Structure formats: C-alpha cells, structure tokens
C-alpha cells in the first residue's frame, strides 16, 4: 500500500512498486496481490521520463512496466477501502482482483509506506489511519480466520508506533524507524528531480535481491537489514505475538509463494481413511507437522464467546402474588359465592 500522492512523494510509489516486483519475482501471482497506489507518477506531467517509475537500482530499473496490476488506484486508496480489503467487508459488486481472498492457511504480507507519525499513517493527504484501527482490523481478520500468519512492514516516519497496538496472535511486524525518529530517503536522482527510494526499503530490497525461491534465509536476517549506520533511523521489529521462532521462519514464507513438492517414485494408494494415508509418507520427508489452526492459540481464549443467552422468566413469587391479587379483586367485586363454581 502506498498512501501518498503528488509528485514529491515519488519515492513511496517507487518503494511499493519495488516490493511488488520482488514479491512477484518470488512467485506470488497478481491474483494474490492487492496493490494500492496513487498511481500518479508514471503519467505525471512533471515526469521527465513518462510512463516509467524508476527505483534505485542503477537508476535504470523501471519498476512500472506492462505487467503492473494496480488494484486500488488514485482516490480509491482510502482508509475505508484499506480496512474493507483487510476485513473482507466488501460490497458484493467488488471484483475479485480488489478482494483479499485469504483463508486460515494464508500467510499475508502487508507493506505500507507513506507519511506517518506517532500512532497514525496519513492516507492521500486527507485522512489518517491509527494504530488502534489497524490493530482492530487485524483482530477482525484473526477472528474471521483470514490469515495464518501475518508479516507487517511499514516504512514511514515513527513507523514503530503503528505496530505497538497489535494484539492478535501470529503477527510479526517490522518498521523502519522508532517512535520519535524520521525515516529518511535515499539519494535523489538529479535527472528526475526527486528522491527515488527510502533508505529502509532500499536496503530491504538489496537484501531481497539475494533471495530466490529455494533460499533458506530466515527472519532474523531480515531484522539485521539496514543498521543505524546505513539507515540513520533505528529499524524495529516485534515478534512477541508470533508463535514460531523467527529463526525458523523463512523469508519465502511471506515474500514468495513456495510450494513444497516431493517427487516420489512409489505409488501411493489413496484410501478413504486418512490415518492409513499418513502412515505411507516416506520417513525422510522434511518433518513439517501440519499447523492446525486450533493448536496455535487456544480459540476459547481469543474468541470471547458471549455467554449463552438464558431466557428471563419472571420469578414465581411475583406471578403468584399478582394472580392472587387479581383473584381477590375479582371475588371482592362479584361476591364470594362464585368461588364454589371455580373450585
């Protein structure tokens, strides 16, 4: 998500497009990417090289080409649309490309860049999203089982404030700067006249360039990217909500779409009972125990169930008293002689 517009925020668009390209390179298809951009750079009248958006690399890598699919462009990038995409509360007329069609086995990467402050991120210079809103959106996603694990990367000033309020499980967050610090941009391009990238994303991209679908690099390496000497701001990260050890989390779990394919020469007969099927697995298989949703965190602790609605009934004493009174009034008015007809 790029939350800025206007020519001087070129670098945010370039950031986003560069991450988009890396993620596509590592195997995630456009149908699985929701790209939100102001998209006013390539055809901006101030762009000396129209129909292009350059990132840092050699100043010659055009990250805006024929195969960039922007899902939410220009004025559609709003806080409301962003939250609707995350939580899935989308009007039925929305096309599939604009929806986040994730389920409880999906790992989601969210990359946001723009202008931010302590606890908020500015959208399109007219509205803001707060860290509380974002945390609540993620909680909604958790409760609606819209993610398995979530990696949240933010490259803005005081970015660490945006992940302070998360409380849903299985979220890992990275930010380009701590509260009180500004994220700085990388060097400008004198030909284009604006800064082309932000420092943090520049170094993250440099890091990502070495990743290929089979690499075993884990998250701890990503946390080391862009130390203070290079980035001037102190990047931060948050892993306390995450179940697995970051050491064991592969970069490609989030940035790429890697299928574990085992080629076997044996024939496996698929029986109707699954117990028999699992026992036929070859023993030297990479032992991944299937991550069941329920085991990750006790559901009852997270999803606070409403107590079962008990119907209220008026107390017996009241009913007795009321009807006794009514009968007394009746007999007082009409005389006691009717009593023998009733009983």
């Amino acid at each position: 998500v790029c939350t800025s517009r206007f020519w001087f925020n070129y670098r945010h668009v370039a950031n986003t497009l560069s991450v988009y390209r890396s993620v596509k390179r590592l195997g995630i298809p456009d149908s699985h990417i929701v790209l939100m951009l102001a998209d006013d750079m390539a055809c901006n009248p101030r762009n000396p090289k129209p129909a292009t958006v350059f990132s840092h690399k050699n100043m010659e890598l055009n990250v805006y080409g024929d195969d960039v699919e922007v899902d939410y462009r220009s004025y559609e990038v709003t806080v409301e649309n962003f939250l609707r995409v995350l939580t899935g509360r989308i009007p039925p007329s929305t096309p599939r490309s604009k929806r986040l069609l994730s389920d409880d086995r999906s790992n989601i990467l969210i990359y946001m860049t723009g202008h931010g402050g302590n606890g908020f991120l500015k959208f399109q210079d007219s509205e803001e999203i707060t860290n509380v809103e974002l945390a609540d959106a993620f909680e909604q996603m958790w409760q609606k089982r819209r993610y398995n694990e979530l990696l949240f990367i933010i490259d803005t000033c005081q970015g660490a404030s945006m992940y302070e309020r998360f409380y849903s499980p299985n979220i890992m967050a990275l930010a380009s700067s701590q509260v009180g610090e500004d994220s700085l941009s990388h060097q400008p391009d004198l030909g284009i006249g604006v800064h082309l990238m932000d420092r943090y994303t520049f170094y993250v991209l440099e890091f990502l360039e070495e990743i290929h679908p089979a690499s075993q690099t884990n998250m701890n390496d990503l946390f080391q990217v862009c130390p203070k000497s290079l980035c001037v701001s102190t990047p931060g990260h948050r892993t306390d909500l995450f179940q697995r050890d970051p050491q064991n989390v592969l970069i490609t779990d989030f940035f790429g779409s890697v299928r574990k394919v085992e080629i076997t020469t044996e024939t496996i007969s698929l029986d109707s009972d699954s117990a028999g099927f699992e026992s036929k697995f070859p023993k030297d298989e990479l032992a991944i125990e299937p991550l069941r949703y329920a085991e990750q965190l006790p559901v009852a602790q997270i999803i606070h169930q409403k107590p079962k609605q008990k119907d209220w009934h008026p107390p017996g004493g009241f009913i007795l008293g009321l009807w006794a009174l009514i009968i007394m009034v009746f007999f007082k008015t009409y005389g006691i002689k009717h009593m023998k007809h009733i009983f």
Partner: protein
Amino acid sequence: MAAPLVLVVLVAVTVRAALYRSSLAAFISERVEVASPLNAWKRVVEGLALLDLGVSPYSGAIFHETPLIIYLFHFLIEYAELVFMITDVLTAVALYLAIQDFNKVVFKKQKLLIELDKYAPDVAELIQTPMEMHYIPLKVALFYLLNPYTVMSCVAKSTCAINNTVLAFFILATIKGSAFLSAVFLALATYQSLYPLTLFAPALLYLLQRQFIPIKLKSKSFWLYTMQYAALYLCSLVVIICLSFFLLNSWDFIPSVYGFILSVPDLTPNIGLFWYFFAEMFEHFSLFFVCVFQINVFFYTIPLAIKLKEHPVFFMFVQIAIISIFKSYPTVGDIALYMAFLPVWSHLYRFLRNIFILSCVLIVCSLLFPVLWHLWIYAGSANSNFYYAITLTFNIGQILLVSDYFYAFLRREYYLTHGLHLTRQDGTEAMLVLK
C-alpha cells in the same frame, strides 16, 4: 345496541389489521407524535431483549415502562398486534358501558330535578331526552375506535393504549359505583403514568354523589367515605408497587419510571410543551421550571373540583383533557381518550362558540406536524421553532376546545336553573359571561 357495537368493532379491527400489514406501520411507529420515550414499542422490545441478556432493563435510559408491562409482554410479545387491537376494543366496550350507565344516571337526576321544580319553566328544549341519548354510547365507541389518533397509536403499538384501557375501566368502575374497583384501576393507571392521580378528585366526588353523601367539609360521613376511598386507593397503589419490586428484585423502576416522568430528562420533540422550553433552559433554572410545569398539571384539580362538584363526570373529562395537554410526554393516544367523550356533551352544541376555528386548527395542525418535522429534520430548511409553533398552536387548540366545552356546560347549567331568556334588573336582555 350490541349489534351496531360489534359492527363498529369489526370495522375498527379491520382497519387496524389492514394498516398493520401495510408499509405505513413502520412509518407510523417512528413518528414522534405517536411514540414518546415513555410508551414507544421499540423501547419495550429493547427492554425485554436486555432482560434476556441478563441485564436489568432499567439500567440505561431506554426503558421507562413499569414491571407489570414487562410481565404482560414477556408472554405476549409475539402477539403484540393482537394485544393492542384487543386493548382498543376493550377500551371502546368499557367506554360504551360506562356511558350507557352514565346516561341512565343523568336521566334519573334530570327527572328528579324536574319533579323538584328546580328547573326554570322555559328550558324544555335544553332537557336531554332518551331518544337523543340512545345513540350516544355507540357514538362514543365509534369516536374512540375510528379516531385517526387512536388508529395511529394502535398501529404504532404504543403502550398509551394500555393506559387508556386502564383509564376506561376506571371510568366504568366509577360510574357503576364500585369504590373498590375504581380505586384499584385508578391505582393501576397512576402506577403506569403518574398523572391519573388527579382523577382521584372527580372519582371521589362521583362516588359521594352516588352514595348521596353531601359534600360539606364538616360532615363526618363525607370524611369517612373520603378516608375509605383514599385508603383503598393508596393501599392498592402500595401493593402494586411492592409487587413490582418482586419482579426484578430491585427498586430501579421507581427512578426510571416516576423519576423520568417528573424530571423530564429526555427532550425528544413531541406534541407537548416541555421539550422546547427545557432544551433552551440553563441548568441553573431547570429544577425550578420542572417543578412549575409539573405543578401546572396538578394544579387545576382544586379550582375545578370547587366549581364542578355537582358534575363529576364532566370534571373527569376536563381533567383527562388537562392531563393529556400538560403532561410531560403527551402523544396522540392520550388525546384520543378525551375526544371519545365529546359525543356525551353533544347537547352542548348550541352553546359552543368556536367549533369551526377549533376543528380547523386541530386538523391543520395534525397535518402540519409531519410536514414541519420533515422540513426540520430531513430537508433542513426549517428549524425547531417551526415545529414548536405547531405544537403551541395544537395545544392552544386543545385548550380552547376544553374551555369552550367548559363554558358551554356551565352556561347550560345556568340556563337550566335561571331560564333561557336572561334579563337584567332593568329588564333588558343579558349576556352570560364567564369570569
């Protein structure tokens, strides 16, 4: 007389059933003129839902009904429409029977006074005959059931209809002469909305009259009977309130119901006079003005009791009218009740002076209420002053109606005893003026 009554009832039930099924039902239940914070159906449903969730319905500022209503609707909530239609029918039948009896009493009294030669010789045309009085009960039932105000109130399922039923039964019990039942129903009516307390005086006067106890302050039997009736009334009230305690095992309902009626915290616009005034008032003075406004409701009882002690049923009518004009959250359902009595005084027709202007004012204001509401709230081209102006005009119309009937009644009484052609001391024609 039963057959025409049944016909009227059937027509009324059909009209209500038809409206329930139409799309107007939702529109009407939203109208502020029909549903006030005290008796809106939405709030009853909300209160019962809160109770199912284990929360006391009086804990917020939503629910202001009494525990007996909770009990009633707890079992009947699915049949709400039937309940309201039945209450309307019961009210109409009760009023029918009451007025039938009242006519007999009036006729007897008239006969007695004629035989005692209390009437002037030339007032033959003012005497009520049984022929013209024959259809009055039917007209009363008709006026109540087919009054657009009642129909709207029923379609909106406002619990004002239940209050009207209790009041109608109270009137029936009083006119039949049963002090015990009358006290019980009056206690129920007071328990539900505080203001029928003022109806204690006319009921007492009627029962005294019926027992032929003269109303003299020194008379022992007068005080004895008054004490008896007051004791019956207060005991039933206390018993009902204590019984309501046992429904939810808390006294929460007292501030929610009576505190709410008396202190008027909710200033949603309605057809009454309280909301605008208190919306503009500074906090500093609001207690003072709340007291003033509430005293205004109760205050008219004493002078009216002194003036109308011979005519307690008319007093009751005027009192009900005053309650529905000056109460803190009036709705059109309250108005429908006293309007149902108008046929009883149809013999006053020749003395009424403002019929045309009154009917115009009332009809036009009723039609303008939704128009100005729409202009104020939805179109934004009017403001609350417009709606308040219509409220004021409507209430002035009602007050004019009541005072017109009051004057006509007193004038007729005067003519009955002094003859139709009034002359002053020197023989010229005199005019009767209400001072």
